[in-house]
């Protein structure tokens, strides 16, 4: 049942095409104008992009006074928790916890992490209890209205090294060391175009631990000649907010004793503590990736079935 041409609608169209044909001579010139307009937009945009590139190059040459940070992009490491099937390496997390406890915890709090969650690292309930008991927690008030100290229990969180933020700032040259609970998700150097597009397909989500590892291993590098390093700060080309930071190099070889025979190097410490901080920031990562795989497989199978059904339903209908 195809409607015959000649109804009112098609007549109207015919009419339009005729008048349009009459305009053709004019349209020819118009075509040129339109093309040039369209091209103009693209050329302008292109020019802008080229200038930006030039500026970036110019800046790169003046090494002593960089304006964009970090000076070096973070090094991309192999992490056990990367990719669709990534899992935490429990031995590594335990080593990272040791580094945190013996080094970082002197200045950095980790107040969102409860001792009970350390069972994720492979510790038994008794081990977690013992670990919590190593800490003194200020609690209260008791029935007499006094605050008191007691040993930690698994439901406690890691106590902060300073009583408040002001005290932390005062003891650290004016800036309080950041809380470490979410550090691995709160730090990330901008990836830039086109890398952020590739990141979707490679599932790159390790910007935080890459950054922390690079920063911790970046203190050895010497500043370029002529660069001014503000007093009381330490040069680190991986620091994302300037040429130098207040935190001195916290790690040295053989500083923390490992029981499992892993190398006691700054690089290894940095990897381990970065992995541990990733766990602290995202404790349900393994669960998330495992669930995700099941969800995607389900959607794939369900989608295939629905697609076949759709084909069958539409088989008799040209569309």
């Amino acid at each position, binding site marked *: *049942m*195809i*409607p015959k041409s000649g*109804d009112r*609608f*098609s007549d109207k*169209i015919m009419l*339009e*095409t005729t008048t*349009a*044909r009459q*305009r053709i001579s*004019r*349209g020819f010139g118009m075509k040129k104008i*339109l093309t040039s307009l*369209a091209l103009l*937009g*693209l050329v*302008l*945009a292109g020019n*802008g*992009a080229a*200038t*930006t590139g030039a*500026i970036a190059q110019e800046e790169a040459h003046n090494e002593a006074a960089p304006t964009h940070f970090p000076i070096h992009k973070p090094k991309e490491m192999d992490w056990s928790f990367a990719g669709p099937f990534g899992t935490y390496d429990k031995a590594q997390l335990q080593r990272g916890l040791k580094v945190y406890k013996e080094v970082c915890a002197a200045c950095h709090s980790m107040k*969102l992490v409860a001792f009970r*969650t350390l069972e994720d690292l492979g510790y038994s309930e008794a081990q977690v209890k013992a670990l919590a008991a190593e800490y003194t927690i200020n609690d209260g008030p008791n029935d007499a209205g006094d605050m008191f100290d007691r040993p930690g229990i698994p439901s406690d969180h890691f106590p902060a090294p300073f009583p408040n933020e002001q005290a932390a700032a005062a003891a650290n040259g004016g800036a309080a060391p*950041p809380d470490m609970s*979410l550090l691995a*998700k*709160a730090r*990330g150097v901008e990836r830039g*175009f086109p890398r952020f597009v590739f990141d*979707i397909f490679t*599932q790159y*989500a390790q*910007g935080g631990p890459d950054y922390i590892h690079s920063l911790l291993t970046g203190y050895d590098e010497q500043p370029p000649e002529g660069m001014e390093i503000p007093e009381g700060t330490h040069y680190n080309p991986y620091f994302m*907010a300037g040429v130098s930071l207040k935190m001195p190099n916290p790690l040295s070889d053989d500083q923390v004793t490992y029981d499992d025979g892993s190398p006691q190097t700054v690089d290894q410490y940095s990897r381990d503590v970065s992995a541990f901080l990733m766990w602290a920031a995202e*404790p*349900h990562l393994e669960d*998330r*990736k495992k*669930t*995700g*795989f099941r*969800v*995607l497989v389900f*959607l794939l199978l*369900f*989608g295939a079935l*629905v697609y076949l*059904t*759709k084909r069958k*339903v*539409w*088989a*008799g*209908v*040209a*569309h």
Partner: protein
Amino acid sequence: MSEGHSTYTPKTGIGRWFDARMPLPRLVYDSFVAYPVPRNLNYAWTFGGILSIMLAAQILTGIVLAMHYAADSTLAFDSVEKIMRDVNSGWLLRYLHSNGASFFFVAVYIHIFRGLYYGSYKAPRELLWILGCIIYLLMMATGFMGYVLPWGQMSFWGATVITGFFSAIPLVGDWIQQLLLGGFAVDTPTLNRFFSLHYLLPFMIAGVVVLHIWALHVVGQSNPTGIEVKSKTDIVAFTPYATIKDAFGMIVFLFVFAYFVFYLPNFLGHPDNYTVADPLKTPAHIVPEWYFLPFYAILRAITFNIGPINSKLGGVLAMFGSIAMLFLVPWLDTSKVRSAVYRPWYKLFFWLFVIDAVLLGWLGSQPAEGSYVFMAQMATLFYFAFFLVALPVLGLIETPRRLPNSITEAVLEKNKGGGGGHPASATAAPETKG
């Protein structure tokens, strides 16, 4: 569709009882089963259904999240972290909700661009289009306020910057800003009212969605040819034809959504929002969520004074103007032909507009300095030129390609030319199938 055409016949006693008293099943049947849709709808038309699903998902996850959230500047950040760590499947709910907002906008942008490409806003669908624009505005308000709730650095500073726009309005600006903030700066009163409104607005969206669908069911769907339905061969029944196609589109969309939720849950967010809000520490670059970036670029592109209008007010006017353009589209487009398929020049300008919008988005994420400013100004100029020059002028001077006489003719032509599979069944009336 409209009353009087109902083919619903209740099969059970209970059905007849209901139908005589409150014909809700009849309404559902007429709207989602018998409702006729053009046979040539492509997958770009599945986004309406996808958006409904996303709205429902956002409301469901949001209601559960609200049970665990505390709207107080001293508690908000930690309450969100409690959801992430201690609430059963809290991480999943929260990642679904935060990424759901992004994908809601992905879907709405595809939906809007589809409307622009196929001229879906043209008579008699102007009101349908405007209702859609209102939904989009409400979505923007909801998305913005939702981003403030986790009380991270970008929440706080984004809210500070965006509420600051209102102070640019002459005479009443400061008063409006203080009304929004509940004080002189972003703080607990701001968080409280934003939380209240963030909970309210989605239901207002749902209300306007009902109107949007109502208007749609009065005028019927447009289609890739832009030719109105003329005969029964042009249409198929919503169920099973559109339902199954929509279902497949939804599953593909949900697949991409799930990929982000489970593997890249923080890809579309900003790392700074995992640092608790600090009114004394301004982040190096304050950027809004990605779906606002083109408008942010337009806001910052106005760096000069225009007569009595200073650059700040100018930027705000340009930004709101860029959204206002959408409302005017039905009257800016002078073309008699709906679909870009038959409009070679409009098609070119449409795609340039898409590139321009993406470019503006990228510029919005870059610092407003150096050549970025100039690029943003050029891109802004093109943005407005598309609406104010290209749409009216192209309709007058463009020579459209020959239009087929009907949807059916277009479909048969396409299947003949493209060697499309089933020549024998192609002519069969769809009513006889399924």
